């Protein structure tokens, strides 16, 4: 069903919509990337080593800020899901999708840096009683389920709706997971008092590095979400073009 007039108008849209895409690696992303790099340099070379743990402690400058980035991204997914169910705005759905993917990346970083540090310090790869780590593990499964669910649905409206339902139920689940893991770990070990890297009595250089790391990773989180959002926009434009061109 591709008569000549249809393809001419299609070409017009193609040229106006997609020949001049906004660059993905723009200034915000570059800034975020540079700041992460800068913090890494500072953490490795310009921050004193922690007395008890040695060099391995420096992994925490990635581990904890990544966790923060993960929680921010997950929070954005949950909030935009509520907005989508309420307003049916597909922008909210795209944002939910973008944040979820970024969240998965950050959570994976947390789950890989955690064991590396744990092995150096505790001699065990996985420490079940580290509440944040275990909690983050279950978060990975929930976010992965969200993305797999979205991937299994073709209709965009249904995808948005189902994704939103899962995101909201997932948000409800989180306190239960937290409580369950807490009960479980409190029974086995008291919460570790020593070796908490974010206690307030850190020497100032370490504290500064931490704060800078938090800022850098938060910037990276937003930059990645923004970039991924743009990809979603362009993908949706292409789908719409393919869907409308020559039919109905």
């Amino acid at each position, binding site marked *: 069903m591709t008569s000549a007039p249809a393809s001419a108008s299609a070409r017009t849209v193609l040229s106006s919509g997609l020949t001049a895409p906004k660059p993905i690696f723009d200034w915000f992303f570059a800034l975020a990337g540079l700041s992460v790099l800068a913090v890494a340099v500072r953490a490795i070379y310009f921050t004193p080593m922690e007395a008890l743990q040695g060099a391995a402690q420096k992994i925490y400058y990635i581990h904890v800020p990544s966790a923060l980035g993960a929680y921010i991204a997950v929070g954005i997914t949950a909030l935009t899901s509520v907005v989508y169910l309420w307003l049916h705005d597909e922008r909210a759905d795209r944002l939910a999708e973008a944040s979820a993917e970024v969240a998965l990346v950050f959570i994976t970083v947390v789950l890989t840096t955690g064991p590396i540090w744990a092995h150096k310090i505790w001699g065990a790869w996985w420490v079940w009683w580290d509440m944040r780590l275990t909690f983050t593990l279950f978060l990975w499964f929930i976010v992965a389920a969200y993305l797999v669910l979205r991937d299994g649905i073709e209709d965009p409206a249904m995808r948005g709706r189902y994704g939103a*339902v899962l995101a909201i139920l997932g948000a409800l689940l989180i306190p239960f997971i937290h409580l369950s893991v807490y*009960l479980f770990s409190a029974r086995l070990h008291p919460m570790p008092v020593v070796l908490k890297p974010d206690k307030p009595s850190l020497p100032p250089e370490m504290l500064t590095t931490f704060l800078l790391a938090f800022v850098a990773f938060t910037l990276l989180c937003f930059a990645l979400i923004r970039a991924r959002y743009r990809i979603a926009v362009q993908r949706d434009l292409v789908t719409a073009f393919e869907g409308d061109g020559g039919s109905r």
Partner: protein
Amino acid sequence: MSRARAPGTFGAAWLVARKDLAIEFRTRTAFFSALVFAVLALCIFYFAWDESIIAPAQRAPGVLWVVLAFSALLGLQRSFSIEEHDRGIDALLVSPISRESIYLGKAIGNLLFLCAIQLITIPALALFYNLPIGRPLMVVTAIVLLAMIGIVAVGTLFSAMAVNTRLAELLLPMLSLPFFVPILMNAAQATTRVLGDRPLAESWPWLKILIAFDLVFVVACTLAFPFTLEE
């Protein structure tokens, strides 16, 4: 035209549940598959450990809850697939009954189905793992019932969603298992204590979370169900 009054929410739910159970009773395939799976899994788990190192009675709680989780998934799969076959769901949606009663009916049907399976699985567990028959086992049965409510609440909703996707059979476990985690964790901890002859009060913190989970998710899933329908 005779003025008929459509049944209320729970009446309609019970109708739907009865219909599902009638279908299940007629075919019986799903029931036997899930049952055989559960009992077989109990046996396989027995051989996974050396009984001289860990006593069977000590492994029993963990094994029970793993087996329950997976046999529940088998049972939940069929929940909405029968509606999808010839679009029986459309007939339900066109009728005057509420969307919520469709969900509740399915959930009640699933609950009865799963409880029937557990009524055989639990004695099988006692048999193979040499558990004493007595009050502790009764309490464990009650904990299983409590846990089944949560499992069914979440599983029924995800079954409704999964049936509309590609790879429905893979998606249901992926969606449901993260939600089963708090149920299984708390129920298993409580079961361990109960079977270890500890007083029930010791298990209370875990049971509290289980009850709270059931309450929150029965309500949340009932409210979420209409969003899973195309409208």
